[in-house]
């Protein structure tokens, strides 16, 4: 059998760090980085006698995420203790949610090759992050607890994903949602968005799921795709041999491009969950829910529909624009400053995104070309002041010199010559100077380009091409049209 004889079944668990100021159960900073163990306090270090107190900002973020994904929000839920021993886990248990997650159901919507996909969610729950072990040398390890207690949302999908590519797109969609909501930065490299995949194969048409393996340590979209791709092939090879896939946890090794067994089901933890006695039940009121519902931003799929609908963009362009909240917001700002949408999209995609190192910086106050500046440039092209070619040069100077298009055009005298009497004179001179070409243009209409080029040269590149064309066609007669 080949890989194509199997149906791939993937469920993802995505952990999203919430960008709250302080930790989920204590007061030290939840910011990324910092000197080791500088973002700590007695509570997140699990010192004896300390108690967790819930940071409501983390709850707010989880509720907004749940509402955006169409989940049912529990108005009353509980935290639970999940027990295991590890050096980066200060209390010997992680405060998480077990039988009462804050969000149930919902779905993540995204596009795969232009087609709308909706992956159902099992749940979204809140929990605290662990610290980080740093293995310095053989037998020497350090622990950095800066990350311990940073709030996490764990987003658990149903096994609805059918390919490695789709898995990667799903994770991208989760990241986009998190950024749209402004609840996290979804940076996989820094670990503020992490993903584990449950992968299994079954013969096409089979009702029962195959045995799954859990894949960990995929810290980029490429890793997600490559690791799952590799795992699918590994499992297909095992099944082809008539053997069974072992239920286990496997670690992706990006350097070697393989997954490796980490622990088997037999050695899996018994987490001994029980309700966290230090925290009263978490209550979210209907009034709070209504307020959050009313303040949700326009989400990626809604924006996509608007861009491809009333705005009139192509699905490809719309897809690029909605991928990041900042890109879409930039686009909307350029359009609202008066630029026609299609041209605004072209300039943004081809020029701005080509230069911006990180699309998320598009909202920065010190961006070299903010939306109104781009709108001004686009309008100068629209009204004929600048040719497309000149405009690209102007844009490059706007980006490096931080000047507006109007300033550059004025200072450099770059305005296109559209004055018809001035152009008329030049055109007449050029036509008179090239009688041979005039004779030939009747049989070879393409020669009009020669005249346009010559006139343009005379104007120093500033002539309005459309105006020049019109005059030349009139002078050279109907045959050239």
């Amino acid at each position, binding site marked *: 059998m080949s890989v194509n004889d199997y149906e791939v079944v993937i469920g993802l668990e995505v952990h999203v760090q919430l960008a709250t100021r302080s930790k989920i159960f204590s007061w030290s900073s939840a910011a990324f980085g910092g000197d080791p163990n500088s973002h700590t306090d*007695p509570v997140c270090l699990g010192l004896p*006698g300390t108690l967790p107190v819930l940071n409501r900002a983390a709850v707010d973020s989880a509720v907004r995420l749940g509402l955006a994904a169409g989940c049912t929000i529990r108005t009353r839920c509980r935290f639970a203790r999940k027990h295991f021993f590890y050096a980066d886990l200060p209390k010997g248990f992680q405060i998480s949610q077990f039988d009462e997650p804050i969000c149930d159901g919902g779905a993540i919507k995204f596009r795969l090759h232009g087609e709308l996909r909706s992956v159902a969610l099992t749940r979204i729950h809140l929990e605290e992050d662990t610290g980080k072990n740093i293995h310095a040398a053989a037998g020497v390890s350090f622990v950095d607890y800066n990350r311990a207690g940073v709030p996490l949302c764990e987003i658990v999908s149903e096994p609805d994903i059918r390919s490695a590519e789709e898995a990667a797109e799903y994770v991208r969609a989760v990241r986009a949602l998190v950024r749209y909501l402004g609840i996290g930065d979804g940076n996989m490299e820094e670990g503020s968005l992490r993903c584990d995949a449950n992968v299994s194969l079954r013969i096409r048409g089979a009702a029962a799921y195959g045995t799954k393996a859990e894949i960990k340590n995929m810290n980029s979209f490429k890793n997600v795709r490559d690791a799952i791709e590799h795992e699918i092939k590994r499992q297909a090879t095992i099944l082809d041999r008539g053997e069974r896939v072992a239920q286990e946890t496997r670690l992706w090794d990006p350097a070697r491009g393989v997954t490796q067994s980490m622990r088997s089901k037999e050695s899996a933890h018994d987490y*001994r969950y029980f309700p966290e006695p230090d925290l009263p039940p978490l209550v979210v009121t209907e009034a709070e829910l209504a307020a959050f519902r009313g303040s949700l931003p326009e989400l990626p799929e809604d924006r996509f529909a608007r861009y491809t609908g009333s705005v009139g963009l192509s699905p490809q362009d719309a897809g690029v624009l909605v991928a990041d909240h900042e890109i879409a917001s930039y686009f909307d700002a350029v359009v609202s400053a008066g630029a026609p949408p299609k041209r605004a999209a072209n300039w943004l995609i081809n020029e701005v995104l080509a230069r911006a190192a990180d699309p998320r910086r598009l909202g920065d106050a010190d961006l070299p070309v903010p939306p109104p500046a781009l709108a001004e440039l686009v309008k100068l092209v629209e009204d004929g002041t600048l040719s497309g070619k000149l405009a690209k040069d102007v844009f490059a100077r706007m980006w490096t010199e931080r000047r507006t298009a109007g300033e550059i055009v004025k200072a450099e005298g770059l305005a296109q010559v559209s004055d018809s009497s001035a152009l008329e004179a030049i055109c007449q001179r050029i036509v008179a100077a090239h009688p041979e070409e005039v004779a030939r243009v009747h049989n070879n209409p393409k020669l009009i380009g020669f005249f346009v080029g010559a006139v343009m040269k005379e104007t120093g590149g500033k002539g309005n091409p459309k105006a020049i064309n019109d005059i030349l066609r009139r002078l050279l007669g109907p045959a050239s049209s």
Partner: protein
Amino acid sequence: MIDVRGASAVALADGVRAGKWRARDVVDRYLDRIARLDPALGCYLLVDAAGARRQADAVDAAQKAGRDPGPLAGVPLGIKDIFCTRGVETTCASKILRGFVPPYESTATTRLGAAGAVSLGKLNMDEFAMGSSTENSSAGPTRNPWSPAHVPGGSSGGSAAAVAASLCAGATGTDTGGSIRQPAALCGVVGMKPTYGRVSRYGVIAFASSLDHPGPFGRTVEDAAALLEVMAGPDPLDATSIPQPVGAYRQAARAGAAGLAGVRLGVPTEYFQAGMDPEVETSVRAAIDELARAGAKIVPVSLPHTKYAIATYYLICTAEASSNLARFDGVRYGHRTAQARSLDELYAKTRGEGFGAEPKRRIMLGAYVLRAGYYEAYYGKALRARRKIADDFSAAFAGCDAIVTPTSPVPAFKFGERSADPLQMYLADVYTVAPDLAGIPALSQPCGLTRAGLPIGLQTIGPALGEEICFRVAGAFEARTDWHQQLPPDAAP
């Protein structure tokens, strides 16, 4: 200067506030008593003489400068070693926390200090508050001041014994299954376990989170009330602390002297049954008669689910303890084995070497209770039984204002008498466990002595946030009797 032996905390503070004596002199007298008497008793794990003198000097300076030195000005307290004290070693009487110096202070002791109280040092206890005799301390037992062959009770045995022997004017304790009231009864002092959440648990090392109640020990009912007034109150660092304002406990304690007219006192039939020491029964029944003479109406009440209290308690407390004690792993603080070759070995050996037998027993029981697939059969069922036990009290309080019972079925027992049989030890808590499960306030006060000269305790249980009625009833009994004035012999050399 008054004789600090038998002195009440309230009287000491009043003298300091009035400028009749200096806090420094009070503290020095207690330090002197500790130096002379504690070697034979073993109440203190650590005496912080320098810190105590520093705090006393600050109180005196405030008083001299005309600033309010606080309601507990210069009151020397002993602190159960389960309360984290900034800069002062805190061990929970466990080897695994030896050398642990907290960089923070518990909310309760912070408030006591702010009220002018002075901490003399840290008091002995059963390791991690697990026990009823203080025999489970890694530092060795505390002796009952009334009889060195007898236990002081536990787990707050060091606190009860220190107050009884006047080695402090008051003390802090924690009560999870009776750990304040039972040693208070066995040592002849007043111990108060308030409503769950009334005193913040922040900085109190957790044994069983849903059952841990910090509270005070005092020589008198008013002393306990004065300490609780300071310790109690909402705390942003404890999500289970309760927001209601703190009651006027001292006033309630004093109001008892005017009698108990209109007060209905429930006596649960289930608490006077087989297993009770006849001398305890006689004294407690006499105490109830005294309360009737004070004007209270005695009514029978029924608490039918009390018989499940011990089993329920040991399912919940072991489950929570196994979880709470998971953090003691040798990675960040306290004991760490010298022998580990791997992370798993670090955990196993650190915990094997660091924990005593009773914590180990409870960790294993608790891990068993919580294992996957058995939650409902054990912990879930225990939570339902706990609800029924709490409902019993609610029903009883429909017909009475407070409930009076013996605190302990027996007076102090001898060392080793019960330690070989954990079940026998667990039964020492039979009358104290139910109010912990229900989270309601309960107070123990001395109400007699056996022929052998061992104290007997009377327990008054109130409804949730009914601390005032407990203090009023106890205050009435105290006003009409002199059991609180009985002092153990000063075994001075």
